């Protein structure tokens, strides 16, 4: 069932066991799992069926530190969430992403990749993915990795009919949960805002917040303040360890044979370091994306090479004559070191229309990441030169220690951390089952529970974790 307002929902007399906040990939997936298990579940969605400026305005906020996207541009606030404009790149976090890195504090998850693997079959159906191919090492240091370009499933579009027909799932649109109330053991209710006014308190046995990788922290920080710590009793890490995938053009490569690498439908190929290389160089994970260089830029690149290595440039010219596809731009996206100082806090001065303080995001890239960018490109360049697959030129600003450009990709719109998973309550918010430490009936879905970000886009892992949480909750409720 889908209701366009909280008023309409109330008439239906539906009695949910579980209340999910947010209808993005995480919320929709958990709801479908619970619904399939016969558990009555309500999904409260702040936005409506379509984009609107009024709804989007609730997402405004500010950023302190490094340049970042406007917070009302980097996500979408309506049914289906940011899946309404995600690009569809899919890959699950690597096995080693779940393991601690001795050289980077606060890395490592309380679960392993094996814990989410049983759900990958379901994830492939949901995201309409072919089977993943194993990585292919091209040297001891670098592996070709697959990033599948999915059809970018729009969750609302794909599942609207199924949700509407469901007798166990009720989606309630235009219903903003402004805060949760709690007594330090249980959430006792959610305060609602609908049709421009307070709409009372909503109760259910269990609550799952799936409001996105920025908003989960905001909602819980505000709820905790209003409930004197009764919603997240161990709040030292709440809002902290926030992460993105910084993304910049790192240079260019001339390739002996572009066809040597498996490329996807957009002619792009991806490479990552081996775990041994990360450990040896003490760097984070990264992904180098090869995008074919336009012809005029290839010529400029060869001219540049001619100044340093004329013979090499000569060979390159021949290559260019034989086939046009012989050079690539290198885009690097990397894993951020999880730092408590990268955090979300509530604005002291600015509130939304419902009176909830807006987000102030504190975000800075660290020296370890800068080293990851440079050493990563060196590693890739060395591999290409050693194997004679090509030659790499690192962008000047990276080699010279210049500032990050502000006119480039910047990051992936991947909002991770803030309510991370862990066993140490001073450094995490949820346990291995995504349950908030110390609370009996509060769970969190989405990438805010990520402990580390790995190098790949998050939604495949978000969906796998959501399937796992849906299964877990079904079992808890069935007892």
């Amino acid at each position: 069932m889908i209701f366009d307002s909280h008023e309409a929902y109330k008439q239906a007399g539906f009695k949910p066991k579980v209340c999910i906040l947010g209808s993005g990939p995480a919320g929709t997936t958990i709801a479908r799992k619970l619904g399939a298990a016969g558990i009555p579940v309500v999904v409260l969605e702040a936005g409506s069926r379509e984009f609107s400026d009024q709804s989007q305005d609730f997402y405004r906020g500010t950023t302190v530190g490094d340049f970042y996207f406007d917070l009302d541009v980097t996500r979408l606030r309506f049914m289906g969430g940011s899946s309404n404009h995600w690009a569809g790149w899919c890959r699950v976090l690597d096995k080693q992403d779940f393991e601690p890195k001795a050289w980077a504090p606060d890395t490592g998850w309380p679960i392993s990749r094996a814990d989410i693997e049983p759900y990958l079959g379901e994830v492939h159906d949901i995201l309409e993915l072919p089977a993943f191919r194993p990585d292919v090492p091209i040297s001891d240091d670098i592996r070709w990795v697959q990033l599948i370009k999915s059809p970018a499933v729009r969750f609302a579009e794909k599942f609207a009919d199924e949700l509407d027909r469901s007798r166990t799932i009720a989606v309630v649109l235009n219903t903003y949960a402004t805060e949760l109330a709690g007594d330090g053991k249980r959430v006792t209710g959610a305060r609602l805002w609908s049709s421009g006014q307070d709409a009372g308190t909503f109760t259910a046995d269990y609550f799952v917040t799936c409001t996105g990788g920025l908003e989960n922290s905001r909602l819980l920080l505000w709820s905790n303040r209003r409930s004197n710590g009764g919603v997240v009793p161990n709040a030292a890490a709440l809002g902290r360890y926030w992460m993105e995938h910084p993304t910049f053009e790192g240079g260019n490569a001339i390739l002996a044979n572009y066809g040597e690498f498996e490329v996807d439908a957009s002619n792009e190929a991806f490479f990552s370091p081996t775990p041994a290389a990360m450990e040896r160089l003490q760097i984070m994970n990264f992904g180098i994306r090869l995008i074919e260089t336009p012809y005029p830029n290839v010529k400029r690149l060869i001219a540049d090479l001619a100044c340093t290595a004329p013979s090499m440039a000569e060979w390159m010219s021949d290559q260019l004559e034989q086939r046009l596809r012989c050079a690539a731009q290198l885009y690097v996206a990397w894993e951020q070191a999880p730092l408590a100082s990268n955090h979300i806090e509530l604005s002291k001065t600015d509130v939304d229309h419902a009176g909830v303080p807006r987000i102030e995001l504190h975000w800075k890239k660290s020296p370890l990441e800068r080293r990851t960018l440079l050493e990563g490109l060196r590693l890739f360049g060395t591999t290409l030169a050693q194997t004679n697959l090509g030659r790499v030129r690192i962008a000047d600003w990276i080699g010279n220690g210049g500032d990050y450009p502000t006119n480039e990709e910047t990051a992936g719109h991947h909002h991770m951390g803030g309510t991370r998973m862990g066993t140490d309550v001073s450094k995490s918010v949820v346990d291995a089952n995504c349950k908030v430490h110390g609370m009996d009936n509060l769970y969190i879905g989405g990438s805010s529970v990520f402990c580390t970000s790995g190098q790949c886009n998050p939604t495949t892992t978000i969906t796998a974790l959501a399937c796992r949480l849906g299964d877990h909750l079904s079992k808890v409720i069935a007892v």
Partner: protein
Amino acid sequence: MKKMSRRAIVQALLALPAMSLLRSRPAVANSDEIAPDEIAPGAIARDEIIEVNGWILRRSDLA
């Protein structure tokens, strides 16, 4: 052959769709080392890897 300036090379490259300019250079002494297509891709070089002007090269590339 007279060494060309960087500017001249750039202009020539931008002007010519085909690279006849560079092809007309005399053959280099040890062309095996600089012709990747003659070496099986994937073969590991024993050559030293160096970084010059942002390029990551084999030392023999500078020949």
